[in-house]
């Protein structure tokens, strides 16, 4: 049985995307990794070709596609050897806040740009003093007439340098309950008082611009509020299912790419007797174990995609998938390097890059420990 039913339209879309990436992205990924950023125009190219925000309705210039389009983009991006053009983050994690909770005015103003790639987005939750604990956020949003004044600092913000708008979680200091105090606001890059910090250097995701963001009495129109005031926490929670699913998909697809690469490597690389490594039983068993984990992970993630499209509540399952797939992917990448030995040290090979990139997946979007904590609550332990 096929868990996911891709139509001909889906398949055409995938083929067009694949061609596009082969031409416009893959040849440059090494350079972007060295540059520690992608050229701003690649976002526009992605958008113009219809590969961003596929779920946004046609009214705003989007494809109005189902989540399978997101899955296709996520899967094809995984094979590009770069992370900076983080389409799934933009299309399936950040923009949905705007798309679901934004006023018609905000949507008219920003969504077409999000689709066309003219507006690159970021979401700013995490702060230096608060990681997974949203109750301890310190950034404030104080209403002042028709404006809201935002002050505070955010960190680990993906697309932090290139972003044109950022969705900021900030609290009203007058509200006692730290959860009910939270609201989400759209802040445009260039707004006085909003400064992008310097790009953070990190283990992997070198082509991705991660940065700190600073808000110093940054005044924005009150109308830049997303949804209702005080509903920030609930809105964030409401989007976590998709966010975790997207993380699981990214991790899984990354593992699949790695498996292909390491199998190909083992079939060509020879041991001291001239036999390909793939004839070594120890290597075979390692590859088989990886393949099984990936196959089993793929079935689970496919099932979750199908359930998500059916709008089922799969909070527990997506939280499980988030920690399970990311741990699995790290294991697959790590074992691949172990098989490669000295070759695994050389950055010119793609697997070391994949290994560095994979490591963050068990940290971001809620660490895996937070996932386990959440699941234990959902299991009523």
């Amino acid at each position, binding site marked *: 049985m096929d868990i996911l039913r891709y139509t001909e339209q889906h398949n055409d879309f995938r083929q067009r995307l694949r061609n596009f990436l082969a031409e416009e992205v893959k040849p440059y990924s090494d350079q972007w990794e060295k540059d520690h950023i992608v050229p701003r125009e690649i976002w526009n190219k992605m958008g113009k070709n219809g590969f961003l925000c596929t779920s946004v309705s046609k009214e705003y210039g989007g494809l109005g596609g189902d989540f399978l389009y997101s899955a296709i983009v996520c899967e094809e991006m995984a094979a590009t050897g770069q992370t900076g053009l983080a389409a799934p983050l933009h299309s399936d994690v950040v923009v949905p806040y705007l798309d679901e909770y934004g006023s018609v005015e905000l949507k008219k103003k920003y969504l077409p740009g999000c689709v066309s790639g003219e507006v690159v987005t970021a979401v700013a939750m995490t702060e230096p003093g608060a990681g997974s604990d949203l109750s301890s956020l310190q950034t404030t949003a104080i209403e002042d007439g028709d404006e809201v004044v935002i002050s505070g600092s955010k960190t680990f913000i993906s697309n932090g340098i290139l972003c044109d708008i950022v969705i900021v979680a900030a609290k009203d200091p007058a509200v006692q309950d730290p959860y009910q105090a939270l609201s989400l606001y759209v802040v445009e890059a260039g707004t006085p008082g909003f400064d992008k910090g310097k790009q953070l250097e990190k283990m992997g995701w070198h082509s991705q611009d991660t940065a700190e963001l600073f808000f110093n009495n940054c005044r924005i129109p009150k109308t830049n509020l997303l949804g209702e005031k005080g509903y920030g926490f609930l809105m964030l929670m409401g989007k976590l299912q998709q966010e975790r699913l997207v993380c699981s998909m990214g991790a899984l697809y990354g593992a699949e790419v790695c498996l292909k690469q390491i199998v190909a490597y083992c079939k060509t690389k020879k041991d*001291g007797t001239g036999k390909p490594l793939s004839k070594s039983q120890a290597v075979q068993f390692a590859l088989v174990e990886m393949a099984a984990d990936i196959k089993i992970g793929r079935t689970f993630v496919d099932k979750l995609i199908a359930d998500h499209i059916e709008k089922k509540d799969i909070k527990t399952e997506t939280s499980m998938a988030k920690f399970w797939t990311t741990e699995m992917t790290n294991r697959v990448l790590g074992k691949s390097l172990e098989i*490669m030995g000295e070759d695994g040290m050389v950055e010119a090979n793609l697997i070391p890059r994949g290994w560095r990139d994979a490591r963050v997946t068990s940290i971001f979007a809620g660490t895996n420990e937070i996932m386990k904590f959440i699941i234990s609550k959902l299991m009523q332990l």
Partner: protein
Amino acid sequence: MFEFDKSQQQIQKAVKAFAKGEFDKEQIQEFEKNREYPIQIWKKAAELGFIGIHYPEQFSGANLGIFENVIVAEELCRKDSSMGITITMAGYASECILRFGSDELKSKYLPKIAEGESLSGGAFIEPDSNSDLCRIFTTAVKKGDSWVINGKKTFVLNGSSADFYIVLCQTDPNASIPINGTSLILVDAKTDGLSTADQGTKLGTNMMSMTDLKFENVKVPVTNLIGEEGKGYDNVQKFFTESRILFAAQAIGTAQGAYERALEYIKGREQFNRPIAAFQSVRHKIADMCIKIESAKLLTYESAQRFDNGKLDPKFSALTKIAATNAAMEVTNEAVQLLGGYGYMTEYEIEHFYRDAKVLQIREGNFTVLKDIIANTTIGKLK
């Protein structure tokens, strides 16, 4: 029971003081980024006697054992894995001279290493072969007073900064088993016909270079032969038995350094109104790290003392290298996780401990090679 004696305690203290005084985080990150060899720090380490501590005094060493060398490596890597590995690899493969070489070669080359005048490199693996060294295509042919060497080597650490290389060559193409026809030959870096090509950025420890070497009719004196002709492969394996202890020592230092940073972090970091050190899942990670570190330490110390007492076999050395580097990998991995986002950021150091641990784990004997060694010595080779 392992206990450091007075002298060993003093060495440890001195190394710790040196690392504390000389290892500057920002500077190290610059070296890494620019892939620049830390010349001053290396020379200072040599000056203080931390390089070649296991050489005899006549060759500018301290006449001490591998156990003391382990202490040095552990302490340096504990402070910084990349710098520690780099410094303790300054004389990499020079032990081939020390153990098998002629007095002339020892006198000529070892003091330079110990005094911080020279770096050395081991040129064993080849692009067309594998790290098990079962087939060597680089040839050395004796012509008059010279060896004439042709071929290619790869994964040569210190490749672009070394003053000489220990090169494994096929010297008898007609040997019944290829490995029986190999010999070790010392080649000065400046010899004509020898060229190096950088292998680019690597997973970790980028301040130390890694290059390919190309030999085109490279002529060196016949006296540059290290050890017996035809014993090259055997001697390299003996050297590996020794050098794996050093990797294990680097691994336990790396693990310890990451552990200590993580421990400090969790005590200071608050989430949900408690230090995260109060959460049992975090506490048990710390417990797991302790188990792995203590266990890897004992294996490393035991290996070192066995070596110093002439009792280390390839099996114990191989299993120590596997266990210690795996421990380092697991401990640094948990350390990254404990720091969360900060664990992934260069500024917080642990991410490069994690990368360096991986390099230690996969270099000079990945799990396949090492487990084959253990099995071969336990069960014998079988068809």
